């Protein structure tokens, strides 16, 4: 079973498609989840997901905006898609019938 942050990272990576790399994934997570995301958390989680075979990474091109440094690109693997889908289904199933309304 995935962790919450792992799921957020997989989802952000999938949404970004070919343009998924560290800074972009971080921005996507911060926008979608409304929480801060440190690069330390991001890269250790990327490593963990890669070791589990849920994403794959490779070094991309360098740009002047990055001080001439290369990007670490990421892509969700088939196994990653299955795990994320299973996590989503589990959350939806577990939440069914529960009204998460906040009392006024």
């Amino acid at each position: 079973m995935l962790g919450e942050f792992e799921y957020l990272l997989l989802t952000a990576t999938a949404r970004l498609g070919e343009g998924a790399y560290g800074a972009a994934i971080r921005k996507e997570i911060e926008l979608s989840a409304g929480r801060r995301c440190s690069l330390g958390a991001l890269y250790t989680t990327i490593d963990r997901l890669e070791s589990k075979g849920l994403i794959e990474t490779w070094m991309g091109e360098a740009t002047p905006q990055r001080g001439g440094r290369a990007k670490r690109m990421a892509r969700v693997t088939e196994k990653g898609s299955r795990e994320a889908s299973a996590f989503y289904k589990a959350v939806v199933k577990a939440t069914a019938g529960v009204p998460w309304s906040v009392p006024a």
Partner: protein
Amino acid sequence: MILARFLSDTDREAVLGDLAESGASRFRMSLEVVRLLLRRHGWTLFLTLLLVCFTANQASDLAWRFAAWFFHQPAFAAGTGRVPTWDKLYWLLSGGFGADLYLGWRSGRAQRQNVGVVIVGSALFSLGDDQIPYSHALPVLFGVVFLGGGIVLGALFGRVISA
């Protein structure tokens, strides 16, 4: 940046590039690098430091004993192992273990290694502290007490660096 030397080649490229792209200040970059290093190598670093302290403490103890024997001066033996600096380092490292645990919980990474490190660390910590009168139960008891203090310190430290 000196700290970046401790990153792997991949990390150095990707992380520093990301930080440059986001327009982070030099201070912010240093902070992020420290946080990444702690997440990546924190437990290894703390365990290594603890082992170094433990070894140094025991070595100084042996040196004093050897001096007492070699020079026929029993007064030398009175100072065995009482090196306050090492005790302070043990406290510091205990705080480090606490910080590592706290950050581990925050980041949701696997806990087995952290728990293992804490157990080994507190055992070494207890055995290495010469101010504790030795018995079979006391080292464990003191280890737990010191570690508890370390976790409190570590949580405070962890809050600062994960803010």
